[in-house]
């Protein structure tokens, strides 16, 4: 009995942390979403679902929702494919590979604010070096307004964010690749398998589950990103990069409507939780994967 009690005590600090950092703010946000609390005030009248009705009736919310999906899916596509390729390269025993593995981490280490400020200067149409060298090399013929153009701002931000994130995906996939026994590849090569067959019949099936898991993490993490977008475009131009987290910030701290901002936050929580349920219940890969050569 004593051992049982001690056993419960060990995770207790973590549980308290979760309660304080996660559960209490979540419940507070739900509460705020049901009240009309003026910014900076403690109290306000109870309005029930009024904040949700307002939000659902605003085109800017639906545009934000759409932008968030585009943002998350765009990042997902880049942050799974490129890291996969890099991880395969890094999985080889080549000279200097350890140095390369270390330098791959650099984008991950650079703070988002540094990336944002540097990007704003580098991508300036008139004075930024990116436009200068693209024009000089003949790749483009006139200056591109990367962060100020309605059509380019979102792809530019996705590329920036993916550049920052790819080391993380690379390391996770690399770790998974290193669990694959080398003998499988040797046996496959002996049987005449080419590199593509090795990839599709050995590599991908065996790391598939890891990639599938990373996929959901990447989607959720990117969905909630605020800093890079706010520090570069602030959701512009013309709300084309205004995702729901950016809308939450604007609604709470620029227009002083914490109730509406909280309701958007609650909607995001419900959406991501439902998505997670579908993803893990219905889309989970089968546990047994047969390797066929």
């Amino acid at each position, binding site marked *: 009995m004593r051992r049982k009690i001690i056993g419960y005590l060990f995770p207790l600090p973590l549980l308290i942390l979760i309660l304080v950092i996660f559960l209490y703010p979540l419940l507070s946000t739900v509460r705020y979403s049901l009240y009309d609390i003026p910014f900076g005030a403690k109290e306000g009248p109870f309005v029930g679902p009024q904040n949700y009705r307002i939000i659902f009736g605003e085109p800017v919310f639906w545009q934000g929702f759409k932008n968030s999906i585009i943002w998350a899916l765009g990042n997902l596509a880049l942050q799974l494919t490129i890291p996969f390729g890099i991880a395969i390269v890094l999985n080889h025993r080549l000279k200097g590979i350890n140095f390369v593995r270390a330098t791959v981490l650099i984008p991950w280490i650079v703070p988002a604010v540094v990336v944002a400020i540097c990007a704003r200067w580098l991508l300036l149409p008139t004075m930024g070096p990116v436009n200068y060298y693209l024009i000089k090399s003949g790749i483009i013929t006139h200056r591109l307004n990367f962060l100020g153009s309605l059509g380019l701002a979102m792809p530019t931000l996705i590329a920036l964010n993916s550049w920052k994130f790819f080391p993380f995906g690379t390391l996770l996939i690399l770790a998974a690749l290193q669990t694959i026994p080398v003998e499988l590849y040797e046996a496959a090569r002996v049987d005449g398998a080419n590199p593509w067959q090795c990839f599709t019949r050995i590599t991908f099936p065996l790391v598939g589950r890891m990639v599938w898991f990373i996929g959901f993490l990447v989607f959720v993490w990117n969905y909630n990103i605020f800093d890079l977008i706010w520090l570069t475009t602030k959701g512009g131009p013309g709300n084309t990069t205004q995702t729901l987290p950016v809308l939450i910030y604007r609604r709470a701290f*620029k227009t002083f409507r914490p109730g509406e901002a909280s309701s958007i936050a609650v909607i995001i929580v419900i959406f991501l939780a439902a998505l997670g349920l579908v993803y893990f219940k219905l889309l989970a890969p089968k546990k047994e994967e047969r390797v066929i050569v």
Partner: protein
Amino acid sequence: MSSKNEKVRGAWIGIIVGLLIFSFPVTIWAQETTQLTYWHHEAPAHRVAAHQQVIDIFQKEHPDIKITQEVVMWGDAWPKTLAAIEAGNPPDFQYSIPDLLLTVYRANAIVPVTDVVLEMDEKYHFFPGQIAPYHHKDEYWGIPIWTMVFLLTYRPSYFEEYVGTTEPPKTWEEFLDYAEKLTQAPDLYGIGLGGAKNLMIDEQAYCIMTTMGAKFFDEKGNIIFDSPKTIKALKFYKEIFQYTPPGADAWSWGEMELNIAAGTVAMAPYFPSVQKRFHEELDTSDYAGAHMPYPPDGKPGTITYPNEIHVYKQTVARGHLPAVEKYIEFVLRPEINYILTAVQEPGGFYPVTEAASKAPEFWKDPIITRFKKTNEVAMKALEYATLYGFEYGRWVNLGIGDITGADVLADVVHRIVTGQMSVEEAVKWGAKQMEKYSEPVG
């Protein structure tokens, strides 16, 4: 043995008595020293240094008052101020701007400073336009310490090369003509104007609006933003915007100053504060400021942004009000005020009183001297400059703070320059947004 014990006991008694004797004056001193904390929002290092210079001089004169400055970035000013008020722990006083002052007034957090204002007015004579934003219900709720003003800043050498004169434009027609002639893409563009959703665009757009006499409110505080004057002003903004560099629709303060200093834009409605960079980094006098051009049916106009001190209720409860009043009187002395104007940001911050505007310390600053003509124009512009929502010498609509905080005007401009809406549609939309925050005083 007992002699040794007696010696030890004697020593302990001596130590305790000694501590008591010496701690008594220290305790008294500590109790008599008033500790003040104030917030301001000028984060650049040289501005923080100017504040500290004033504090150091003040503390030498008043050794019983200790002051600590705390910097809160402008972007965080509204939420952090309101959070501090809600927590019951705001600073003793705060440097602020009229729209933020209105927000804290609505939070019922501040006390009037009428007595100090009247006393200082008698001594130093405030410019009427600078004290007007603080008058409400027969009280003054803030006291201006320095002010800011937009001019049409420009590069005289570019004017000479491409327009054939160093004289700045005076009418809208000339303004457009200059902008067109000065646009030599891709290296030079006629004008620096922004199109993003931020305070800079609020101010640039208002600069142009006010030369048409367009306003947010009427005298009763009703929203009159959707008017022919506003539409005409913003149509002009859209027309001249075509001469801005690509990417200007995403600019904020940093990009604007970079492009002015780099010579990518020939002119820009802006604070003439860039003169500091021209003096220190570029060492050139090729920079000037002029009155904003206005149309035949318009009038001289520009934006001014006084920065004031307001005092919190908790300051009175803490017994710190007399010390705060001493500080306010101190910083308005012309020979001290120049530190918060010419030293803190030459060409950016200007005096708010006649006495300070004549102070030799202000005009002897090397940067102010180098660009003397521009600074004289700025002082002249203060005579007619106004601030959105405060044009009537009193508060007419308490929602102006939220309207500014939400960057509604900048949002209207953004929709226009990005082609999302026509000028008429955007103005109509903007008026509707303003109605959400509107709180007419009546």
